[in-house]
């Protein structure tokens, strides 16, 4: 494992974004926090060829999509584009909705895990486990 895991964190909710970012930084991760899917995809592609590509992404589900409209599947759309760019890239879907079918849908689309917001301590453990795997 690299010394510092690089995490792409995407959420349009600024307070949540900052809070999760702080928790992850405090846990020793290198975090790029982004507030929209378009910027996130661009940043992901930009760093893919660099020396410091992302190791994992944590995405919110319900946020504006690539057309700028609020869309509960915006995170899933970004998930698909990330996996299209880098198949097998580990992604955790982060959302406030603890709906089983939505979680299964995310996993079916290639997410490694689905995580309910507000449990950052568990999220850190989950990221570490996925990176180790």
């Amino acid at each position, binding site marked *: 494992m690299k010394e510092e895991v690089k995490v792409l964190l995407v959420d349009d*909710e600024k*307070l*949540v974004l900052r*809070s*999760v970012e702080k928790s992850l930084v405090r846990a020793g991760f290198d975090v790029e926090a982004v507030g929209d899917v378009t910027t996130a995809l661009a940043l992901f592609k930009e760093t893919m060829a660099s020396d410091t590509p992302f190791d994992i992404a944590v995405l919110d589900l319900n946020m504006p999509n690539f057309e700028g409209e609020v869309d509960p599947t915006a995170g899933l759309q970004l998930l698909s584009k990330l996996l299209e760019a880098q198949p097998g890239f580990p992604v955790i879907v982060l959302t406030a909705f603890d*709906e*089983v079918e939505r*979680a299964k849908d995310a996993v079916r689309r290639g997410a490694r895990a689905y995580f309910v*917001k507000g449990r*950052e301590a568990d999220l850190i453990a989950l990221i570490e486990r996925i990176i180790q795997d």
Partner: protein
Amino acid sequence: METPTLAERRAALLHAGALVSRSITSILDPDVLLHRTVDIICTAFGFYYAGVFLLDETGEWAVLRAGRGEAGAAMVAEGHKLQVGGHSMVGAATARNKAVIALDVGDEPTHFKNQYLPLTRSEMALPLSIGDKVIGALTVQSVEEAAFTEDDITALQGMADQLAVAIQNARLYSENARLLAQATRRARLLMAAADVGKGVTSILDLDELLHKMVDIICDAYGFYYAGVFLLDETGEWAVLRAGRGEAGAAMVAEGHKLQVGGQSMIGAAIAQRHARIALDVGAEAVFFKNPHLPMTRSEMALPLVVGDEVIGAVTVQSEQEAAFTDEDISSLQAMADQLAVALHNAHLLRALEMAHAELVRTKTFEAVATATTEAIHWIGNKALPISVSVQRLREDVARLSGVDPEIVESMQEDLTLIEASARLIMQVKEHLIGPAREYIPAPVMTEDVVKDTVRVMGIAPEVIHFTVTPDLPLAVADPTQLSRAFRYVLQNALEATEDCAAPCIDVEIDLVEEKGVRYVVTRIGDNGPGVDEANLDKIWVSFYTTRGARHAGLGLPACLQILKQIDGKAQAYRRPQGGMVFELYVPVHTGSAPQDPANLPAGKRYLLVDDDDVWSRFVEQALRAAQNTVTRVADAGTVEDFTIFDVIVVDDVLAATDSLAALQRIARAGATARTLVVASSVRVERMMDLLRFGVRDVLPKPYTPVGLAKLTL
């Protein structure tokens, strides 16, 4: 006195004749005419007495209608009458249509001794006739013997003939007046009926319509009082809704009501569905003495009927006895029928308005609920970082050095307060949004869902007791949402009994039928202090709680919302022995549930890791019926080789162990890829924990053979 000369006598007769002629042409009232006639005859001729008899309806009796002086008045009052063809002179004159004269009455065999006229010495009875038709007789009596001359007889017979014509005219006039009055009354009743018709189609306000109705009845018919009663919701009482005048207003204000089938005429008319009429109320057994209407002598009660339904009655009362004619009764009943239809329409309109208002309320509630849900969701999202921030701050505070310990303690306390508030906000969010989450109704075993919920909540077996009716049908609900509803009520019971020395929760699952709909009802009773009777309705209202500020008061409203979503219901009542009972009604599954085992996989070896319960017995039976082999174990630790099974099914909720422990063993054996985890209620975080072992899938528990067919790889 000097005897008048013949010329003077004839002049007097002419004068009397002229007076009588003038009278009969100017007087139209028969009684006045007859009394004036006898007075003129006695005055003009100087006779002791004169009287007029008219034949009665049978033509057999001549009845005295007017008589001179006190004697005449007394006889009229007595109803003095003489038989036509009898022994009296009047009887003879009316029978023969010919004058009868007795100049010395003592010698006349037909004279009838009359105690009121003892001085009579001469009498003349002249028939009153028109053509051949005798209508009565005129009697003239004198105290003198042989008092009548031929001139007198001629003059009096002429007067009698004129009088007969005048009587006939007066009678015709009276009859015409009566017919005219009747026609006028009919016109008035028709107008009243038209007014009622107009009123019932144009007046939409029920009270206004009823008051208009009673006014029309009293004004048009001239009755003393009218009132309208309508049945109350129980159908047992007729309540006065409108009454004429001050009496009516006072009775309406008093809430005057009469029992259906009771002793009142209104009560009888409604019970028997036909009009009750008392022409002399004193003699009517069902008349109800009313202090507000002391003058009533006749009363009519007309039921208000629409189709087979009686909705009330109209009362009409008069100060006169026998006040109602057949015409009154039929026209008033027609009006009552019209009113009944109008009232029925008004009820329908009101029901329509109420339904519309309910719809508006529902839509408003939905809009408010949507806005509230979005607002709560927004607030919840904003509050999400609070607990995490608090955790970081706690870590930071713990690392502080050189700070006054009291300040550190105060900071820790503040963090605790902030954390508690954030937790409450998240709890509110969960309660409000939870029931609106995924909703996939399916056939469910209520017993299995309840028992799994109890185990997940960790309720000690010694606290909770189950009574389950055997062979219960499947209910229909989203099992996750139903489990959430049970959890709210069970949590409520746990908190209610937390101060009890021996807490006890009784769960009874039964089948009931209400209004043709079958429900699986789950009764959850506790031996806590219970809720006051006055507050029972409030417990279903959001944010109402009897348990202090740490409770949001949203669990039971959320439970109710979940049940309403599946056309079920919830209710609560106090137990007689103390504590509360909550009843959760879930509709029975009425859709088809094919039992064909051919849908199931066959020839497979199944390992079922589950307790011996209602669901595992169903699974074992169904899979074996489809020619599969099934091994059931409650503890996966007893299985030596997991790889010999084609399919491993693990119930997420086990009595003796955590299913994660079972999955660890299965994972160690390398058999997770052939493992399916089932749960009556699945939560995302739990699902992620389960999936972490690499199990094939996490599925909602199937409760039908068709659902069971999906438990394959």
